[in-house]
């Protein structure tokens, strides 16, 4: 494992921790995008360029837009609420860094004396070939999932439009 790999993993973990612990929701969404961007660099390092491009464009791009839209459509807290929230928040999230550091240290120093992956089957299969020939059923599933998502959103907004018209 090179120093760059380790540095990227530490950066990704730091971004994830910042995402969880930062008080502002918008900062949290940006932290999530940063985590995705660093994860896509790790994917490039691990010979998965197509998945990395997907991760960068969809997770760091589209999902961040969805989160920012959701945050902008909801009302922020008042200053009084925010001050009250900040007091309890620190207490609630204080345990997380401790848990992560202790667990990380325990796992890192655990003895590595087992083979946890099957040996062999190292075929340099190309992603497009696998996706279109071997995993074709997955594509049908993906299409169904996308259609379900579209119908779900349409129904959600349609009902809301009706309710607003009735009012």
């Amino acid at each position, binding site marked *: 494992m090179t120093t760059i790999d380790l540095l990227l993993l530490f950066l990704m*973990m730091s971004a994830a921790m910042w995402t*969880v612990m930062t008080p502002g929701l918008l900062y949290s969404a940006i932290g999530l995008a940063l985590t995705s961007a660093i994860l896509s660099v*790790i994917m490039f390092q*691990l010979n998965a360029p197509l*998945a990395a491009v997907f991760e960068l464009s969809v997770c760091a791009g589209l999902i961040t837009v969805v*989160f920012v839209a959701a945050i902008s459509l909801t009302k922020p807290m008042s200053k009084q609420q925010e001050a009250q929230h900040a007091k309890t928040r620190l207490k609630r999230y204080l345990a997380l860094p401790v848990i992560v550091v202790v667990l990380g240290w325990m796992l890192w120093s655990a003895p590595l004396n087992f083979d946890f992956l099957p040996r062999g089957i190292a075929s340099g*299969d190309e992603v497009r070939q696998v996706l279109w020939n071997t995993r074709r059923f997955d594509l049908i599933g993906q299409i169904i999932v996308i259609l379900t998502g579209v119908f779900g959103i349409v129904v959600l907004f349609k009902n809301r439009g009706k309710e607003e018209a009735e009012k």
Partner: protein
Amino acid sequence: MSIEMSQQIWAYGVFAVLLFVAAAYCILVSKNLIRILIGLELFTKAVTLLLVAAAFASGRTGLGQSVIITLIVVEVVVIAVAAGIVIGQYKHTQSISAKELQDLKG
């Protein structure tokens, strides 16, 4: 598999577990629905990291990538629908707190 490769995959596995723990903590502790969705996203990041490391170790990067792409598609749809539900909930109760999600209609 060489010892060096095993150590490398172990390191990715350790970070995936840590990411998973951070996401679980976020979901369990937070009451804000948007932050819970962000925690859900972090869960999938941990799974993606583990998948890509496993694909690299076994040499089947093609299969790994196709599974990751499927995971990303599902993830996007889940987040889009969930964000829509959160906005609907906000319009209904003027709050994005999970505490308010106690009344079911019908």
